[in-house]
């Protein structure tokens, strides 16, 4: 049984205070390579959420059985098995998307976020909390990658949801800017991802600084990622 405050803390940490992309700055490789559009970012995040939730649950249940000295290889084995399952599901269900995302689905195994949460949280906390932590850390990654992918797609090509037909064949991409929009290609290229990620981090810091300035009595939530060894 868990209390409401605990749930809220896990949720807020995952979604905002320890956001994987904006605060912990983990998993930059898929972040840079995959967020060329919104759909890719969302789908890779969904795959990561599934892996994180189940691996956190598995490690949390087995945490008293795993010898401390060899815990990392055991974690990797569990995560790798789950990623293989997700990889096969993507290949079967969304084959076109699977070809686009390519190596980045298998690479979820090596994603620091998954191992960081398993090691830092699931290894020390009960089943329910660990599963929720995996889900909400993934949700934090999801909205960041969706925002970044959407911005890059919009600035770079003037569209939104391109490639949605690979997930839902009935849907079409949205052309938000006029068709003769020349496209600011830099946003699609890796430097654009770095610049926009920097802007997002600056925006998050600005929001927190403003919130702290408005309520001087209450100290701001510590957003230090270092505390949990990630």
């Amino acid at each position, binding site marked *: 049984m868990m209390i409401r405050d605990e749930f809220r803390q896990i949720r807020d940490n995952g979604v905002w205070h320890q956001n994987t992309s904006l605060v912990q700055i983990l998993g930059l490789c898929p972040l840079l390579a995959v967020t060329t559009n919104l759909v890719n970012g969302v789908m890779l995040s969904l795959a990561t959420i599934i892996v994180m939730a189940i691996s956190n649950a598995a490690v949390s249940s087995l945490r008293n059985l795993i010898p401390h000295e060899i815990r990392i290889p055991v974690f990797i084995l569990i995560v790798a098995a789950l990623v293989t399952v997700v990889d096969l599901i993507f290949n079967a269900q969304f084959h076109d998307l699977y070809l686009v995302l390519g190596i980045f689905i298998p690479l979820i195994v090596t994603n620091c976020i998954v191992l960081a949460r398993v090691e830092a949280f699931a290894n020390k906390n009960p089943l329910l909390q660990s599963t929720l932590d995996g889900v909400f850390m993934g949700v934090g990654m999801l909205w960041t990658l969706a925002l970044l992918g959407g911005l890059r797609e919009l600035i770079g090509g003037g569209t939104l949801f391109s490639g949605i037909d690979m997930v839902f064949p009935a849907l079409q991409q949205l052309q938000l800017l006029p068709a003769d929009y*020349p*496209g*600011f290609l*830099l946003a699609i290229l890796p430097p654009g991802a770095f610049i926009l990620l*920097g802007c997002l981090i600056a925006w998050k810091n600005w929001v927190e600084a403003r919130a702290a300035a408005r309520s001087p009595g209450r100290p701001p939530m510590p957003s230090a990622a270092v505390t949990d060894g990630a």
Partner: protein
Amino acid sequence: MTDFTTPPYLLLERSSVRRVMLQVLAALLPGIAAYVWLIGPIILVQLAIATLAALAGEALMLGVRRQPRGLFLTDGSAIVTAWLIALAFPPMAPWWLIVVGTLFAIVVAKHLYGGLGQNPFNPAMVAFAACIVSFPALMSQWPALGLTLTLTLSEQLQIIAGLASRVDVMSGATPLDALKTALKLGDGELDVPTLLATQEVFGHFAGRGWEWVTSGYLLGGLWLWQRRIIAWHAPLGFIAGLSLLAGVLWLWQPQQFASPLFHLFSGGTLLGAFFIVTDPVSGCTTPKGKLIFGFSAGLLAYTIRVFGGYPDGVAFAVLLLNLCVPLIDMYSQPPIFGLKNEK
């Protein structure tokens, strides 16, 4: 208005940024005059667009960063960036391309890094690199020879405003590009001396028309040096590096490589040598460092220009060397006066 509350040395400092920037702008005038005379007065429109965009971006960012507008808007640094961008971009670039480039330079390359004096990269070169990576087609469309002189000014304005079609008339390339493409298409059968003598795009010793524009930059640069606004180290190093590589390759295979003279007066060499690598903010600060900085940038600019895929290499060379500036500065500190340089 006399300000009695500020110590005199501060008054001198404050006005000196503006004085330096105004002299840099003045030094660009001979090149601009040649540009207007040989290529067309359209460059004046582009300069005006870039200046307005730069001042707007500067005012916006100063407001966001809560810095004194009156002081920084009038120091002229934004206008120098704007003019360099307008001169480096194709003369018939659509207006929004100039605006996007200038805003990118001012907002991202200058103010996001901390504003005047804080930017690690040359803003004008960041704008050029960002635009040539994002819009390679538009940035490579230079007017075919004589076109800007035959089209009336209103027709040129229509092209810039995007009202007239630009497909057919904009088939030209820079002299550097023309040489590279012809050599590639010729597949060893064409050689450089024949090309330079026969093709219309080439003039006496470099690109027709452009050779006098770049001579104007040289003139302005020498004046800046004579006024002690810039030191000789960086420009000389840049020219030496580029000429050395060009000269060696030219002596080795004169059929395949153009002469150093051609490379000096083509593309952005002289504009870069006197107005870009001399940037006191993003360049090196020690004399020896300036020499190394300029020389390496020259070598790199030639390499990218001749063997790379882009029309010119000055922007990428300068940006790459900007990254090395802290390292070069660290290893080129002059010995302290009165002490022996301990080795």
